């Protein structure tokens, strides 16, 4: 059989794209990008994190274009990102710089600085709120005015001047329960500039994990806890808050004070604690804690916790479990790579499938001939 080149379908494709727009607007109304940005915080955070591009407004636009489909929205943002120049690399963002708005620990009740609940659905009853069907902008403004007034009244009575909250890890390091550790300033590798290779550097692993698909990262971490891994983790500390971002002047050799502040980004950061038995001098065994680190753009606590679990798994390879195999984990959690590959199966495979058909027919013919001879 020879190969035949074919063309056609242009008109059908044009009509298909037109129909796609029809599906988005056929109810005769449209959702403004500002409203998406105002009301779909969770989805925006997920899309920014998986596309590895922090922009609430562009994520909102992508969500509108993708009709709320995160897989498509992430694809759009990754494609847009590839058209932009990288102007700077930031100065190192340090964990203690975070302006905290939520901070909890599941390991210690009395952590220095206290447990600050922040905005979370953790303590809601998950009952559908049918009042939201009647919510209007007027009602929202009334509620906001009352909220701000209550906050102002309470603030007149208290005068906090600082919200510097010590890290739980520093407390544990001080107690000798976690091995001390010095800053490692080795330049990180960048998976957006060079292909991932194995064994991967720690910086590559963390970059792939933080931009991983929320569902994939969560599922693999869940599998670890259920027994397809060797971990018993606890949330040491979970923080949600904003990091200030600074860049150096591209030409001047100034000090720290000569850099530019460019704004802040909101993230979720987690340290997971894993108890391990360590053999000390004379065979004496002691329990110490190891740490798994998770972080992602926006408020996405499940993903950050799951990343912390997988980080520790990949730091401790174990051939018994795929979740401890970095090639298995890192190659399969990227949203665009995984959905792109699965999705490409819809594309025409006429030639390859035809060759498989030919092979199938040949084996049948051969088998029939052998049967006749036999």
């Amino acid at each position, binding site marked *: 059989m020879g190969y035949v080149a074919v063309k056609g379908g242009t008109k059908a494709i044009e009509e298909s794209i037109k129909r796609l727009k029809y599906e988005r607007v056929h109810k005769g109304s449209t959702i403004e990008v500002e409203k998406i940005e105002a009301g779909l915080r969770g989805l925006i955070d997920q899309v920014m994190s998986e596309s590895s*591009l922090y922009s609430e407004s562009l994520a909102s636009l992508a969500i509108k274009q993708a009709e709320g489909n995160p897989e498509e929205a992430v694809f759009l943002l990754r494609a847009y990102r590839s058209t932009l120049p990288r*102007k*700077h690399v*930031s100065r*190192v963002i340090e964990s203690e710089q975070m302006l905290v708005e939520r901070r909890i620990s599941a390991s210690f009740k009395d952590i220095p600085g206290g447990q600050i609940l922040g905005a979370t659905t953790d303590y809601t009853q998950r009952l559908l709120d049918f009042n939201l069907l009647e919510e209007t902008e007027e009602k929202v403004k009334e509620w906001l005015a009352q909220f701000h007034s209550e906050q102002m009244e309470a*603030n007149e009575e208290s005068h906090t001047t600082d919200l510097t909250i010590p890290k739980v890890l520093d407390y544990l390091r001080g107690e000798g329960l976690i091995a001390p550790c010095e800053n490692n*300033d080795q330049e990180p590798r960048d998976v957006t500039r060079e292909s991932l290779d194995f064994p991967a550097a*720690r910086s590559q692993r963390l970059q792939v994990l933080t931009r991983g698909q929320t569902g994939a990262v969560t599922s693999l971490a869940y599998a670890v806890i259920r027994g397809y891994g060797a971990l018993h983790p606890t949330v040491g500390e979970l923080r949600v808050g904003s990091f200030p971002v600074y860049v150096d002047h591209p030409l001047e050799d100034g000090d720290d004070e000569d850099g530019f502040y*460019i704004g802040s980004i909101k993230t979720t950061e987690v340290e997971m604690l894993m108890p391990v038995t360590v053999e000390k001098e004379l065979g004496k065994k002691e329990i110490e804690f190891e740490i798994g680190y998770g972080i992602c753009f926006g408020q996405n606590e499940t993903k950050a916790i799951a990343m912390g679990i997988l980080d520790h798994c990949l730091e401790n390879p174990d051939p018994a479990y795929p979740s401890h195999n970095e090639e298995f984990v890192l190659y399969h959690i990227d949203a665009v790579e995984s959905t792109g590959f699965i999705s490409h199966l819809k594309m025409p495979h006429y030639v390859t499938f035809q060759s498989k058909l030919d092979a199938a027919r040949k084996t049948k013919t051969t088998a029939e001939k052998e049967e006749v001879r036999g």
Partner: protein
Amino acid sequence: MKRKRRTEILINGSRQLAKNMASDIEKYYSLEVIQEPQHGMVMLKTRETAQKSLFYLGEVIVTECKVMLKDSIGIGVVIGDQPEFAYQLAVIDAAFLEEVPETARWIGLLQKEESKINEDRKSYYNDILKMKVSFENMDV
């Protein structure tokens, strides 16, 4: 006033302040826009806390502009899609580099804005601390 503190005040403070300061310069000096406000990205280099090593968290969209005032090139760079603000920041940066007389008057304005930002931040801290848990031991 050094650039770090100045940009913290301008970006965290009222947009009107930067607008007024840039307008002061536009009135009396000739400015050349070297680079129109342009979108780009800043890669976020981050230190993780488990082993204190560095990695890249992802990129953030910024708007950047470059303006020349006499012999100095000012740079304005800010997170998000903010072309006018990036231009104003570049003008102010050039003015400080060139040490034009207006900058002496601006110091007071910037310090006043900084006090307001600090007050707002205190208020924010108080709001956040309302969500701090006060544990009580139960009699069982």
